[in-house]
């Protein structure tokens, strides 16, 4: 808690304040433990803590037939979606930066549209559409395509704000040595913006993984769906969902930490800012790509983030 002593609101505590904090700490800890005890007691009364509800989770059957295939489906959809989203984001992000008005307008409409439409609506639409057209594996492709369109639009915004975040000297220097505006964008600005946005891209992975769980609604056999199947088959739905949630939390937490570490390491490799977007701040809608929610730094980017231009 070393950073706690340095927040704007609270000065470094003196002896009296330290005593108060100690008491507050004790009281709060007791209240929290009491609350936890009440919850556990309720669960106990409902018979949710009984061993048989949990033992079936730690069998080979649970993992080889449910959790691991589910996790694999989740990761498969997320992996394909991320690759697609980066390509989509690069194309439309550069489109929004183009000096040709028509390209810019079209890219803006596409990006803003797909950021505003709920991912679930897209999934249901594509799922029913693909089924109607007799395409193979409609739920998988519906999940992937919806994730690509939404997250690709967010990546496009990352590209755009990454380029806007570069010092103008980069472009001026490029123009001065005789590159055209497109060349400057392609070979000077976007590459640096890409390095700068890498941490934000990693934390966007968290969003992709979380949103892939929407696939359960359109019957894509991902982790949540498999956990639900297993839970209703073994009448331990509460426990099974908890296992799925813990798996998601572990993966996403590691990704968030990785993004933060990456941000620290890449600083100095680019002229842009490598701020991590408040990890998992799901909605790219209007999200300033460089919004600093995750770190404790006083960075002015936080104010200037959203929807430049």
């Amino acid at each position: 808690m070393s950073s706690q002593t340095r927040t704007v609101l609270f000065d470094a505590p003196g002896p009296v304040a330290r005593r108060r904090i100690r008491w507050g700490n004790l009281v709060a800890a007791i209240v929290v433990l009491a609350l936890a005890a009440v919850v556990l007691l309720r669960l106990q009364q409902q018979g949710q803590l009984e061993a048989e509800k949990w033992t079936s989770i730690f069998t080979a059957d649970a993992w080889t037939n449910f959790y691991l295939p589910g996790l694999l489906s989740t990761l498969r959809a997320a992996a394909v979606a991320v690759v697609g989203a980066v390509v989509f984001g690069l194309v439309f992000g550069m489109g929004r930066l183009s000096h040709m008005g028509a390209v810019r307008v079209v890219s803006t409409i596409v990006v803003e549209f797909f950021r505003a439409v709920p991912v679930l609506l897209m999934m249901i639409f594509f799922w029913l559409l693909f089924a109607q057209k007799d395409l193979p594996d409609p739920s998988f492709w519906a999940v992937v395509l919806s994730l690509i369109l939404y997250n690709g639009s967010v990546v496009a915004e990352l590209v755009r704000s990454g380029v806007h975040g570069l010092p103008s000297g980069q472009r001026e220097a490029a123009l001065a040595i005789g590159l055209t505006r497109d060349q400057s964008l392609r070979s000077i600005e976007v590459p640096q913006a890409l390095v700068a946005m890498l941490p934000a891209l990693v934390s966007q992975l968290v969003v992709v993984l979380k949103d892939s769980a929407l696939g359960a609604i359109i019957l894509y056999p991902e982790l949540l769906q498999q956990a639900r199947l297993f839970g209703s088959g073994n009448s331990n739905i509460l426990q099974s969902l908890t296992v799925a949630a813990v798996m998601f939390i572990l993966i996403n937490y590691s990704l968030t930490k990785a993004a933060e570490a990456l941000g620290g390491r890449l600083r100095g490799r680019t002229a842009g800012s490598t701020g991590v977007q408040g990890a998992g701040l799901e909605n790219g809608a209007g999200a300033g790509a460089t919004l600093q929610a995750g770190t404790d730094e006083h960075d002015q980017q936080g104010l200037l983030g959203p929807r430049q231009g």
Partner: protein
Amino acid sequence: MSDFLSQFGELFASYDVLGAFWVNIQLTFWAGLIALVVGCVLALFRISPVPSLAWVGTAYVTVFRNTPLTIIMVFMTLGVWGQLKIQVSDDFPTNFFWLAVIGLAIYHAAFVCESIRSGVNTVPLGQAEAARAIGLSFLPAARMVILPQAFRGAIAPLGNTLIALIKNSTVAAAAGVATETSTLLKNMIEFNSSLIYAIFLTFAVGYVILVIPVGLLTTTLSRRLAVRR
């Protein structure tokens, strides 16, 4: 063309599309209200110098920011209602509506907390030091110097959270709310598959109309109120 138009008109006469959007708006409103209150309390916890409170805030945010909303919503119906037998109302639709509201609020409170914290983090340490230097004690310094700047810094991230909440209210379908937009979209397409594109576009445009003004408003506000440094 006129054939298409008459089909389309008939479709919207027989389905209550606006009513479905109204359900989503209500979900958003109540969940947003609860999330705002809970999120503010959590943010206070996280920035407080009391370690156990800070720990609670951090733990809450870590857990719920990393859990898919869909799991929380499924948990609300299958777990909280189905297994723990916790019921909000005897009326089925009302019960599921409020379970969905609670699920949405639990999830978004974590984001509200982070938005407010990031707002506080935009205030430079020098502001607090200057406030103390001119003799303000804790409460006056917080009330007159730090919090006004912090709220201005929090507008943009709070706006993003609201936009996310509007869109995420569709996930209430996973919590058994059958009257909101994503369920209606599915039903309408299933019974009128020839109009699939028109139906999807209608709903999509509905969300664009809901979301874009919120985005524009919060961006304008946060720009206009931004503290120049």
